[in-house]
């Protein structure tokens, strides 16, 4: 699957395209199929997102899993500071990244 990501223009937060908006949570990301570039252009022009780009991901039982480690780290926050990420109480988050 292909999913669309970028950073929130105002906060810089990592965000994911949900089909009708943006979420900070990767599990809300949807397959953009062949529409990713068009959605990215439209959303960037509307200042809903900064520097959006399409990435490869795999759908798993826990939701989408980005193909590249860089985007997996983007999804959860710095692996060395899990307390600052979106799932500070999840002890398996480091394993998920790798």
């Amino acid at each position, binding site marked *: 699957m292909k999913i669309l990501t970028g950073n929130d223009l105002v906060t810089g937060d990592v965000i994911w395209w949900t089909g009708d908006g943006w979420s900070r949570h990767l599990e809300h990301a949807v397959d953009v199929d062949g529409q990713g570039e068009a959605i990215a252009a439209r959303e960037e022009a509307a200042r809903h997102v900064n520097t959006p780009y399409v990435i490869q991901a795999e759908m798993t039982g826990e939701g989408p899993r980005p193909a590249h480690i860089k985007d997996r780290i*983007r999804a959860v926050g710095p692996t060395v500071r899990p307390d600052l990420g979106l799932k500070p109480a999840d002890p398996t988050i480091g394993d998920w990244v790798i």
Partner: protein
Amino acid sequence: MYQYDEYDQAIVDARVEEFRDQVRRRLSGEMTEDQFKPLRLMNGLYLQLHAYMLRVAIPYGTLSGKQMHMLAHIARKYDKDYGHFTTRQNLQYNWIKLADAPDILAELATVEMHAIQTSGNCIRNISSDQYAGAAADEIEDPRPWAELLRQWSTFHPEFSYLPRKFKIAVIGSEEDRAAVRLHDIGLQIHRNDAGETGFRVFVGGGMGRTPMIAPVIRDFLPKADFLSYMEACLRVYNRYGRRDNLYKARIKILVHEIGADEYRRQVEEEFLHTRTLGLDAPQAEFDRIAAHFAPPAFESGLSDEIDRSDPDFALWLDQQVVAHKVPGYAIVNISLKPTGGIPGDASSAQIDLMADLGETYSFDELRVTHAQNIVLPHVRKSDLYAIWQKLDAAGLATPNLDLVGDIIACPGLDYCSLANARSIPLAQKISERFGEIGRQRDLGELKLKISGCINACGHHHAGHIGILGVDRKGEENYQLSFGGSGAEDASLAKIIGPGFSEDGVVDAIEKAVNVYTALRTDGERFIDTYRRVGEAPFKEAIYG
């Protein structure tokens, strides 16, 4: 310390308001990201993996307690309660909101700080010796010259759009604590045969994709010609530096391609012209700047005796405290490398504590080192125990200066959008593997440096042991190299063989260290043994 005059303050204040308007226009849609990006970068604002990152300039690594407190305040108010001290003697905040950036810069401006020259293809923040003005081996304090360079280079109309970024370091000692030969320009104050002080000028060093050690372009530059010669060095680069290829745009490539002799010839030719332009600071202006760096009011007659009865204090004393040029005083190194910690990170509370210590015990001065530690430059020996107790209570008294646990590491893939692999977790694992301080001290000086990509912000080329993180088919992989040095015996580390996983590289370091301990002679550091015996026994032990 230098204090802004009305012009400095007016320039910085105006820049804040200019950036405030630029941010407003970006948020309102009047500017696209392509239009805005170069403007935010000129104000130190990057977009990294998780958020905007703001890099604050700390000119030549020197700051006051008030400035240090401001860094803590910003971390607490606008970020996530911590900051990261960098290998360029600066500080980075990792979680900045775009809308807050102008207010942050405005708050910085109230304590004579900014984020100018921390990005872009300009002359970057000038770096220097963290022991400047305090070192026992110093010929002359390099900071007035660094400050002169700062004033000359800030918004220099001719050098704001260079082919690539440009880094200058200045030192005033024979011992090189600022890696001058690995800078675009390195300046070393020294004496000529006539006993005059001037500058040895190195040009064309650097790390990154194509590491090079800078050759000497001028062995003795009289002080009177300082800026006009710098102008000539930059002009030749600006004219002939490669703008067609990002990876060949640094001055080191130009100097390498045309040769040091030809570069020197061109600089000297240009210098004949620039020295007629009245560019050099009048003596009165230099004296005004230098007066800000006059030695503090050291007391005389202080005792050099220190009570070493507390063994933990004595250990810290031996490792973290170095000689000061004034009897009764010492230089304190504060380690930001707790065992298993994140190199260079400090919480707001820790930053505040260090600020307090600087104000109370070090004539209101602190320094940031390129090795990501903090220095209290002027401390009475009689105050050392009190300082140690406060540092120890705050987790800032790890006695590992220049030991294997004193690892330089870039933010790596945990934060940086350029990185290919994580640096910090590897630093943490190595730090824990060699956590026992007694063993670290037995191994002696061992400078281990980790970069998460080829840009080499972790200075891996200059590590006695250097590690470069790479992306190998989507997996993090680490190349191990030996033999680098950023000191006066500068050398570039050489890759030892195929790369490793994260755990594999830690094991490989253990094997290399065991080779060293087996082969070393009395007094030899790791790098000395490596240079003497060569790579073969290390390679054999690691790859068998």
